[in-house]
């Protein structure tokens, strides 16, 4: 049974993964680059433009552009109330990268936070990605 429901779910999972990965990588590159740029407390655009010439910042901003575009594509078929909690898995990924790659300390309260997010994402993941009726090719749940 190759139902449109299954196809929509697969497409949604793939785009959710792209949104999460580009978000985490983009923000990591950006913050790594900002360490080299220094404080940004300016209403003038010049320091921001200068920051873009930092290679880490440039890669970070490029990834965040991919993030924005894939997020827009995802919202062209999926509910906002689905996309929002699902993409919060990015927070979990940041905590895991901090713990296992950067060997940072993760407090028990933070592990509880990771667990709550995972539980929330699992629950929302069991709902249909699209519940609004505005589309012709629908995936009713």
């Amino acid at each position, binding site marked *: 049974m190759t139902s449109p429901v299954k196809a929509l779910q697969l497409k949604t999972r793939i785009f959710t993964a792209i949104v999460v990965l580009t978000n985490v990588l983009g923000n990591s590159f950006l913050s790594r680059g900002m360490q080299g740029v220094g404080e940004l407390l300016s209403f003038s655009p010049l320091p921001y433009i200068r920051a873009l010439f930092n290679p880490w910042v440039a890669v970070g901003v490029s990834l965040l552009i991919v993030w924005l575009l894939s997020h827009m594509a995802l919202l062209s078929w999926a509910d906002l109330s689905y996309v*929002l909690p699902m993409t919060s898995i990015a927070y979990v990924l940041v905590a895991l990268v901090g713990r296992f790659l950067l060997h940072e300390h993760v407090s028990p309260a933070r592990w509880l936070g990771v667990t709550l997010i995972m539980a929330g994402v699992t629950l929302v993941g069991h709902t249909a990605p699209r519940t609004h*009726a505005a589309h012709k090719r629908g995936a009713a749940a």
Partner: protein
Amino acid sequence: MKWILISIIVLATTAGEVLQAVGMRHHGEIHDFRPGALGRVASALAQSWHIMASIGAMAVSFFAFMSLISIADLSFAVPATAASYILETIFAKYLLKEHIGWKRWIGTLLVAGGVVLLALE
């Protein structure tokens, strides 16, 4: 100043994502991912005021967040984003007419609670 920035971030993020969802729903589902088709999508979206306003709102939120983390700890800045989960879900229900059953509500509340906990030292 911190609280002013947090209010700006929560309101701008909510406005940006809700407008983006409205604009993308008007556009309809993207099925064709070949470059030519994506070019047509881009030019259609560039003419959507919802999408342009959403990009403006998200830029406001991005720069307000950069300012916030330059005067406050990340551990203070992150829980602020949790408030936008609740606000956006309310807009999704009443403005976007999404069906939010108990699984999605509980899941969203767990995620928002988890984000607040992640911010604790």
